[in-house]
């Protein structure tokens, strides 16, 4: 079992003692300020909903301690507006605020940390907090401009409310090569109820005479802007930030790093081979050296950054290390508009071949198009953008990939830049070779509650790569003795369900089991570790699976309700409820399956009663021809019972008191339907 050695947990004992199955879980929407310099202490506000009973704060990585502050008296009385005053623009999901002091040690590693609040009943969703290198200045409330002129380098911190325009003043010297880097979307990548589904910052720079001298709203394909400016005269300069549409709300938090900061705009080449040295040229600003030699130890994508003056570390860019035994790999750069690259590819043996352009995923702005022609100049495949589910921050997948069956012969491959872009950053790597079917797995949600004597269920999602068709066997390691695992068969689908049932005498604790997938391909066994993910919604519609640092299984005390499947016969499931004495509430019994078309109508088991029957059916396409083609398949599913919580006032308790909801699951099973 993996322990919590990498997780600094404030008040762990409180968490373990206070876990109660079925209590409400909260949600956090912002942390302000969104970061702080190492070697400092900062009071932060964590905003969200249902978080006022927070008992602690979890922050990933080492070197940060957290103290939750008592709620101010005013907040206890209720910060929320009265019901009748709530208008269209209010954001109840951000209205609750808790305060904490983050103390960051001098040697804390810089970078993004995961932050969650600990609540009775579990932990909240994750948000980011940055451990920075530069002194911080925090926005001065409603003042038009910061009260005093900051000394560079500095990080300005603020929060954009509706129609807000924040301004900060700093002193710059003639000849300085300034870099102004905004971090806003990286702090809160997706917002569910806003269009665009993130804070879209714009920054402007004003000279000592108040003239606008530079402006930026996007840096290459990144939402967060970056400005480069060579200072022509010494004096006080202002940097201004607002949302492109002058929207604003509490979760529009930002940090702006300003100074003669090292910043890499691109590297060349963008890739090399594992185990071999590659001399890399760095392009950018304020770099002490523009040469670097890399020798990656294993294939994959590695982050490259440089150290500038005063030991300040630059931004990161990606370098691709390819396996020197695999594929033909070519690296090129678009030097002029509409440049076309042609490659010849010989196929000695009929089979599946894979062609992949890697550019945008390495941080290059290139938007490539890949076309494969046969000997007769007929187009075999023409691909512009291939979705990459593992590139969770991307909303435009610009790199094309093709897996195609080719006969013996010679083929020509063309790569063009779709947007006629060119320049030193417009590199790409094209790999061509035999397909190597593979897969990746993710687990959703990343936090699962398992009651003692009860069951917790999670989804395992499968991405098949390069036409991988094999069976994937899901395994789970790191569970103590007595725990039972069910499910994990993908059949032909992309999703399966896995359940973990705890022994009746399980004590409340946190487990970090490892979920893996195992499969066979032509080269032998492939084992892949599943990545825990959490979904975030963008702009009312799109859902993105964001990777988390750990898969967390919270073992909680026994629930007053248990659900079990008595029998499965001819699409009819008989369900039995085991109630604790006195727990007589009506229970809604439902079915969830790994295939969305396989359903059962929910059944309400009346007060005090214990049996239910679910009838499973498959929703068929309207078109009879398509319906006739639907084959019987094995589907994993589970039954669960829900007793809803009440939001009504409970006599003798505060106005925010809720009666707890209870969700009890039965172990996953399979049915052919």
């Amino acid at each position, binding site marked *: 079992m993996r322990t919590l050695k990498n997780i600094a947990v404030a008040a762990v004992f409180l968490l373990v003692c206070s876990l109660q199955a079925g209590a409400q879980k909260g949600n956090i*929407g912002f942390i302000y300020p969104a970061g702080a310099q190492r070697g400092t202490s900062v009071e932060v506000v964590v905003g969200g909903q249902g978080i006022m009973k927070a008992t602690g704060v979890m922050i990933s990585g080492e070197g940060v301690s957290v103290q939750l502050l008592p709620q101010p008296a005013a907040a206890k009385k209720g910060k929320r507006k009265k019901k009748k005053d*709530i208008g*269209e623009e209010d954001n109840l999901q951000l209205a609750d605020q808790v305060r904490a002091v983050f103390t960051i040690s001098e040697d804390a590693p810089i970078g993004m940390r995961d932050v969650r609040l600990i609540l009775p009943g579990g932990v909240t969703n994750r948000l980011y907090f940055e451990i920075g290198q530069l002194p911080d200045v925090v926005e001065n409330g409603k003042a038009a401009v910061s009260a005093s002129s900051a000394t560079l380098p500095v990080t300005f911190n603020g929060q954009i409310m509706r129609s807000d325009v924040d301004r900060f003043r700093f002193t710059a010297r003639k000849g300085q090569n300034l870099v102004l880097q905004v971090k806003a979307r990286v702090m809160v990548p997706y917002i569910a109820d806003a269009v665009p589904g993130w804070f879209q910052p714009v920054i402007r720079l004003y000279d000592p005479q108040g003239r606008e001298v530079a402006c930026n709203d996007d840096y290459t394909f990144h939402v967060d802007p970056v400005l480069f400016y060579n200072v022509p005269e010494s004096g006080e300069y202002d940097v201004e930030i607002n949302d492109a549409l002058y929207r604003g709300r509490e979760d529009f938090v930002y940090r702006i790093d300003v100074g003669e900061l090292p910043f890499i705009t691109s590297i060349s080449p963008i890739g090399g081979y594992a185990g071999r040295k590659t001399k890399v040229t760095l392009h950018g600003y304020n770099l002490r050296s523009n040469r670097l030699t890399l020798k990656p130890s294993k294939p994959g994508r590695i982050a490259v950054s440089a150290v500038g003056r005063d030991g300040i570390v630059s931004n990161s860019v990606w370098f691709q290390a390819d396996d020197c035994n695999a594929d033909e790999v070519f690296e090129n750069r678009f030097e002029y508009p509409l440049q076309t690259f042609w490659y010849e590819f010989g196929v000695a043996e009929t089979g599946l071949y894979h062609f992949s352009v890697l550019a945008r995923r390495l941080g290059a702005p290139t938007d490539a198009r890949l076309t494969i022609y046969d000997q007769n100049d007929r187009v075999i495949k023409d691909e512009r953008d291939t979705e990459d589910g593992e590139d969770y921050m991307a909303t435009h997948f610009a790199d094309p990939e093709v897996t195609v069956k080719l006969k013996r012969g010679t083929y020509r491959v063309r790569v063009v830049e779709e947007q006629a872009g060119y320049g030193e950053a417009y590199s790409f790597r094209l790999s061509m070779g035999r397909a190597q079917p593979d897969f990746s797995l993710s687990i959703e949600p990343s936090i699962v509650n398992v009651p003692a004597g009860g069951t917790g269920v999670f989804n395992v999602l499968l991405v098949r790569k390069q036409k991988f068709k094999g069976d994937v066997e899901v395994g789970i390691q790191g569970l103590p003795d007595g725990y039972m695992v069910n499910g994990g068969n993908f059949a032909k689908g992309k999703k399966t369900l896995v359940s973990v049932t705890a022994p009746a005498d399980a004590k409340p604790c946190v487990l970090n089991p490892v979920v893996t997938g195992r499969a066979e391909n032509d080269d032998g066994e492939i084992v892949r570790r599943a990545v825990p993910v959490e979904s975030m919604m963008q702009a009312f519609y799109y859902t993105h699976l964001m990777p988390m640092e750990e898969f967390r299984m919270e073992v909680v005390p026994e629930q007053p309700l248990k659900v079990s499947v008595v029998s499965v016969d001819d699409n009819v499931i008989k369900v039995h409820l085991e109630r604790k004495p006195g727990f007589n509430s009506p229970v809604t019994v439902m079915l969830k399956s790994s295939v969305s078309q396989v359903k059962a109508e929910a059944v309400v088991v009346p007060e005090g009663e214990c049996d239910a029957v679910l009838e499973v059916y498959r929703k068929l396409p309207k078109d009879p021809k398509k319906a006739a083609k639907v084959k019987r398949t094995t589907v994993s599913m589970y039954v669960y019972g829900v007793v809803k919580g009440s939001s009504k006032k409970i006599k003798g308790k505060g106005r925010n008191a809720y009666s707890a909801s209870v969700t009890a699951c039965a172990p996953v099973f399979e049915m052919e339907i």
Partner: protein
Amino acid sequence: MLLMLWTADAQKARSVVYIYLDGGSSQTDTFDPKPEAGNSYTGKYTRPIETSVPGVYVGQRLVKLAALADRYSIVRGMCDGTNAHETGHYRMLTGDMTGQDIVYPSYGAMIACKKEKDYDNPIFPYICITEASTRFNEAGFLNVMFKPYDTGGKPDDRHFDVSGIVNHEIPDELLEDRLDLLATVSSLGRRVEHTPQVKLAGQLRVKSRDLMLGEARKAFDIASEPDSVRNAYGRNNFGQSCLAARKLVENGVMVVMVRFRGWDTHKEHFKRMDNRLDELDAGVSSLILDLEKEGLLDSTVIVVGGEFGRTPKIEFGPPWNGGRGHYGAAFSYIVAGGGFKGGCVVGKTDARGEKVIEREVYPADLWASVYTLMGIDPLGTVTHPVLGEIPMLPSYGKQGQSNGMLKEIMP
């Protein structure tokens, strides 16, 4: 599919009023309540009311409309298959499906174009109160004179100033002086070649002058209405917009759209619904009653609905906190007057209002029905400046995009 035959004498209507519930209204809170679906679906609206038509229920806040159910029919089988505002607007406002080669003009521009010869009125044929600016509510490839005219202004203010026509701060004498001065200093019209476009611009200038200074502008004068009438519509912008729509119809305007915003209730839906529904109830019921009283209901089609419905299931968690999302699979419209029968229900949804289980009605079917009542053949063509004659309602009659006109409630 058997398409209803169109005949020239099918015309019953002279005008159309489209009450556009911009943002998408909840079908289950309005005209297709599902009290049995449970709290997760009904929220606080658990007690629908029986209408004047036995066995037909509407949402509990639509008290006045419930009493008038014999005057309108409820179309519960509406579906446009999209959950995006832009595509929803396009589909509902044009009757065409998105993703085709040709972008179509809106229904109002199409009616104004097809009925151009029958329309002799100084007021523009297609008026939007107070703004048309949902995307795709345009004349498109048709002549610019068929585009919607936005009134602007606030009907609920003491003075309803209409953009370019009525401005209470400028006396007529001053306006005439200004127009004369403009004619004197602006020599462009005298110096450029008299192309058809220049001639049209000249005609429109004359028309505009007549509109600004003549009797026609009184069509917008809702302040002259007695307080009792104004109050019945509701003293709010929507209610007074309905009153303005009635006056425009009385003055012979062919198409009026009342754009009623604020139905896109992703968050805290119910806190906003009380007001919206009360305003809808008062405005639409008064419009129906007044048109009936004036003898105009039989010749005026009233259409009420938005670009889609809303998710029957309520989203309780943050950030929605009791909100409803977009839902194009099943939603409700009401239609009244102009030849549509009242007291009927067309289409049926399942127990939760999530799926149409009887009689799907597509946007093309709705507009084919309205066009027919206006004396326009929905299978007819319209002139495209490049492509020539093209179908005016291409989705009508196509599998998956049409299910036939609302013949159940048409003469």
